[in-house]
């Protein structure tokens, strides 16, 4: 379970289940994760088909919010529990994050346990690499030493690339394995071209390491920083480090300077998300019953009481008049029940806000979608997102995951909030140049939807732009900048509220490396969609870092 048994809390991780059956089984593997404060667990289900005598390994993607309690793995067929295994969880196995090391030699990172932060190492093979980038959420650093490109699937490769581009940290180590590395797409991500092996007697970067050591000759690429012993650059929002030496070599495993070197790798700067999970708190959690609904109900109730009084009076006087009483009651019961169903529907809605953050130069964007299921009158729900958008509830609660993108369960009357993250193609990029005349921006939005209510955010000021179509090239008038200040009360409109949150965060956030300003705007405009059982209010915001000079990396 987890990464070599280590469990980064609330991060997606694999639960591997080895199965073998004597009879054919067509069922599902269910992983029940305890949820503090609830009797029922959070369940992760995956269909499975077992053939007699054929062992099978199933990896169920799950996340564990708390390591107190017992995790249960069940094999269920036709609604019947066929097998069950309880796995006690331990707080000792909970970690802040993990370092994944893809190496044939599973040793050399033991010193991580000496760090003040609870970061632990897990030695993996190619088959352990997640097929979706969200599978890396608990990973602080991915170290690649021995890599066989043929051992990974196209989905694993895409997940790997997307993870680094959206803000992951990758370290590729040198020495002989780097020289023989044959993965063009991975080599393209490196900040230097690896050459042949050379022996170095003594290096200033590795002072104290007994020489000679075998290192890979590096030729830095344009935009990369570093020297002969290592190179680095940003890859999208992430970071790629290349070391010319092999830190797993015996001489470096006992080197006194290794902790500082690894700590620098663990803390390599990456671009944080503009929309962190806490931003979802700005979503509404309830919606009061509309005044018109209450008035109509009052009118219906009054009409019913009057009608029934009339029918009762008639019943006592006219022969067969009593028939009017059940008739009136039945007609009003049906009408009022239908009305109540409509009121319930009006009160049940989904409010969702997607914040698309363009990753400059990659043609990709990372998207965080906050969705609030407002269900004041309860009921059951099924929520399904795009397959590459993995969801987590803001607060752990008993829910069923048929996949990381499909949740169902009983709707909480206090509302359910989920966050979904995904990486999508984004044909949008922006540049900014500063001159004596002021700031000039160029927005390239060919192939993308129009951007409304666009504004440039820079140094605590905003500049309102006209709607952006395919292209916008504009010199900004220095007199039209406005200071940004939060409104005393959050705006009623959800889209406005999130716009304010995003701008406030950009104002607080240190400027992204290489970015001069930010473009923030709305895409598509907020719209309400009426479904058979609920209403959906969807809003989309887009955030683009406007780069200045050509940056390193893509």
């Amino acid at each position, binding site marked *: 379970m987890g990464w070599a048994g280590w469990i980064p809390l609330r991060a997606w991780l694999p639960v591997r289940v080895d199965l073998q059956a004597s009879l054919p089984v067509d069922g599902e593997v269910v992983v029940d994760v305890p949820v503090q404060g609830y009797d029922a667990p959070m369940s992760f289900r995956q269909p499975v088909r077992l053939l007699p005598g054929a062992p099978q390994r199933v990896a169920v993607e799950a996340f564990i919010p708390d390591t107190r309690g017992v995790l249960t793995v069940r094999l269920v067929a036709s609604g019947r529990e066929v097998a069950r295994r309880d796995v006690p969880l331990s707080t000792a196995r909970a970690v802040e994050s993990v370092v994944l090391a893809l190496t044939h030699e599973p040793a050399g990172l033991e010193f991580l346990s000496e760090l003040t932060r609870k970061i632990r190492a897990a030695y993996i093979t190619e088959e352990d690499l997640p097929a979706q980038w969200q599978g890396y959420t608990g990973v602080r650093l991915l170290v690649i030493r021995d890599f066989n490109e043929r051992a990974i699937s196209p989905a694993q490769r895409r997940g790997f690339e997307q993870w680094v581009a959206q803000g992951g940290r990758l370290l590729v180590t040198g020495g002989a394995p780097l020289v023989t590395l044959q993965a063009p797409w991975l080599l393209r991500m490196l900040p230097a071209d690896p050459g042949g092996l050379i022996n170095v007697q003594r290096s200033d970067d590795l002072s104290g390491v007994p020489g000679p050591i075998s290192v890979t000759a590096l030729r830095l690429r344009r935009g990369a920083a570093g020297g002969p012993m290592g190179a680095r650059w940003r890859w999208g929002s992430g970071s790629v480090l290349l070391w010319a030496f092999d830190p797993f070599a015996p001489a470096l495993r006992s080197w006194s300077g290794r902790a500082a070197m690894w700590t620098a790798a663990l803390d390599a700067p990456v671009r944080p998300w503009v929309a962190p999970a806490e931003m979802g708190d700005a979503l509404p959690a309830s919606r009061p019953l509309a005044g018109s609904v209450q008035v109509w109900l009052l009118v219906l*109730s009054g009409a019913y009481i009057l009608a029934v009084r009339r029918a009762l009076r008639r019943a006592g006087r006219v022969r067969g008049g009593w028939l009017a009483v059940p008739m009136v009651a039945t007609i009003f019961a049906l009408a009022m029940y239908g009305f109540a169903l409509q009121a*319930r529907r009006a009160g049940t809605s989904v409010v969702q806000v997607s914040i698309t953050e363009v990753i400059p130069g990659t043609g990709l964007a990372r998207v965080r979608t906050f969705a609030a299921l407002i269900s004041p009158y309860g009921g059951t729900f099924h929520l399904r997102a795009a397959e590459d958008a993995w969801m987590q509830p803001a607060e752990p609660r008993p829910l069923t995951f048929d996949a990381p993108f499909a949740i169902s369960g009983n709707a909480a*009357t206090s509302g359910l909030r989920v966050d979904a993250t995904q990486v999508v193609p984004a044909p949008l990029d922006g540049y900014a140049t500063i001159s004596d005349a002021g700031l000039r921006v160029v927005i390239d939005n060919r192939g993308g939807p129009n951007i409304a209510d666009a504004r440039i955010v820079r140094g605590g000021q905003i500049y309102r732009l006209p709607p952006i179509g395919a292209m916008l090239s504009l010199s900004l008038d220095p007199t039209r900048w406005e200071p940004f200040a939060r409104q005393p009360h959050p705006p009623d409109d959800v889209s406005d509220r999130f716009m304010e949150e995003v701008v406030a965060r950009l104002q607080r956030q240190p400027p992204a490396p290489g970015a001069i300003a930010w473009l923030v705007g709305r895409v598509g405009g907020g719209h309400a969609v009426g479904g058979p059982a609920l209403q959906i209010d969807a809003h989309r915001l887009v955030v683009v870092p406007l780069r200045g000079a050509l940056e390193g990396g893509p």
Partner: protein
Amino acid sequence: MNPVLRADLRYRLGSSKALTLHTLFLVIIALLTFLSLPPDLARLDELRQGGLVLASLIVSAVLTMYFTSACAAGEIGIDGEKSVWDLAASSFPAGTIALGKVLSAASFAALQWLLAGPFVAVVAGIRGESLMAILRAALVGIAAATAFGATGTFYSIMFESDFARSFAHWTTLLAVIVGGNALPSPWHALSPVRSLAIAVREGVRPTVWLVVGVYLLTAGICVGLVRRRVERIRIEARTT
């Protein structure tokens, strides 16, 4: 049709006092319905979604039980309706009187459940509950109210003093509704509130049928007791 039932029904449907009674009943139920509407109410842990529908049904049931038994016991007098004492002096057979009075109580209970239906339907609709839950509750509610009505009829002829009658009536109501609820399992199902909750939450299980049977048996026993009492009154009247 039983002549006593026919006459009672006419007065219990359309007399001015009956109209006031039904209107009062409907206004109370309507008020409760409005109070249960705010979405935030369901956030209280104690008041889960189904709990509000159940609470609404229990209030309807308790009110129906009270009104049915109070009318039968003479605590609430309906204009024009003849009491068992008056009917004892008539030429109707004692069995007809006893059966007619108990059937009047059953019809009155059914009428009140029918009248409350649209309001309970609002609560059920907005909370996503099935209308079948109301029908299941009505089965228990009407049977219990009939039993209380039959008991009230018996008290009306047993006790001449208003105070004694009211005392016996209220004691019976409290003993069965509150006291029954305090009994250990499975006997607590004898309380109409408890059996109604079982019927709504778990369906019409054998326990529910058993309790409904007990209520109907009680009503049947009361028919017999009232009949005997009417016959004794007639004998006493003839001998004096």
